[in-house]
């Protein structure tokens, strides 16, 4: 699974959501909301080393992902 960050909220200025980008059939997108099961899975996937692109589509490094993961609710 590959994810990409994006800005979703109408007043948001920083990425507050992520979407899947490598499945030709199913696309999942979700806010960083602890009650959303796709978001819960996103955090598990990140912890397990999945690929994450920043808002421009560039792949983030493992260290960047680790730091980012620590900021998530």
């Amino acid at each position: 699974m590959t994810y990409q960050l994006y800005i979703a909220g109408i007043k948001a200025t920083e990425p507050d959501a992520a979407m899947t980008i490598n499945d030709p059939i199913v696309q999942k997108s979700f806010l960083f909301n602890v009650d959303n099961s796709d978001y819960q899975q996103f955090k598990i996937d990140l912890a397990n080393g999945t690929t994450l692109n920043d808002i421009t589509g560039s792949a983030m490094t493992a260290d960047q992902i680790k730091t980012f993961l620590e900021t998530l609710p």
Partner: protein
Amino acid sequence: MAYGTVSADIVQSSVSGVSLGAGNATLMKNRFINGAFNVNQYNLGTVTPTANQYIIDRWLSNVSVASKFSVAQSSVAPAGFTNSALITSTSAYTVASSDYETFQQRIEANNMLDMGWGTANAKTVTLSFWVNCSLTGTFGGSIYFPASTTRSYPFSYTISAANTWQQIAITIPGDTVTNTAPTGTNLYCIVQWALGVGSTYTTTAGSWVNGNYASSTGATNLIATNGATFYLTGVQLEVGSSATGFEYRQYGQEFALCQRYLPAFNSVGAANQVEMITTGWVSNGASTAQFIFNYIVAPRVRPTGLTCINYNSFQINAAVGGGLASSVTFLDASTAGARFQVGQSGMTTGQACQLYYDNTTSAVGQLLFTGCEL
């Protein structure tokens, strides 16, 4: 002409198994939604869940160890029903003490406010269901009540004949131990059927206890037998000490009840049909258009995500540009509607446009707004 009978808490018709119950109302007496498994907006086919997952509307596969069973909507059903949930064990798994594998429905507090659990006026309920299993023996489950002090009521039931439909009824006294029950849109209780539960989460059946217990001591673990099957349907939870006839609701009513937890667009699936969804506008650099999805039913809470199936068959109709979507992603929502965006190119910022599903392959297109299930 045969006549029915009236007793203290049941009105029995002259037809076997057809009766009215003792709840405050005999309409909407069943606190389960989609208890006959007729509504299936998720449309996933057979799924072997690797984590907790809703596979049929309102029904959650609770998974602590991945891939030990599969779940599917089935057309195998007892007389009077057309669907069931089919659960199939995928291996001969030895259940560990901390394992917790159940099939469950989570019931919203708004639909249980008359129960009074946690007070001296707690109401007795009766759980009834039809089951058909390839195994025989004593099986287990529980009601989990996440009040200020967590409470559980483990129950057991016996399947006496393999591969045979059998109706089970279990009467459960209301929990009168003083407690603060959940309210509003929060989870009131979980009713769950144990598929494989370890000793940490099992205890003696038949009484309310403190803590989280998912099954009864000594219950058969379905997932311990490779290929074992378990069909479930006609699930009902009602006030009173008797199981009464299953409450059939009109399909549109049951469907609407499900949409409170899964607002969705589902294409009808016929080939070469255009299905209009909503209107919007080109919003950003001519590469995305934004749309509002107006729910048919107000959701329990505002959605927080979107799963789009066959997203590249959704299409934008615009005076300039438009065409098949390159992405379909969630933006934000209230309980009135959800905003989402669709990727395309070559459009003109600010122009109005329409979103439709272009079904050229008979593949089902879906917009499933997530985060409303309990």
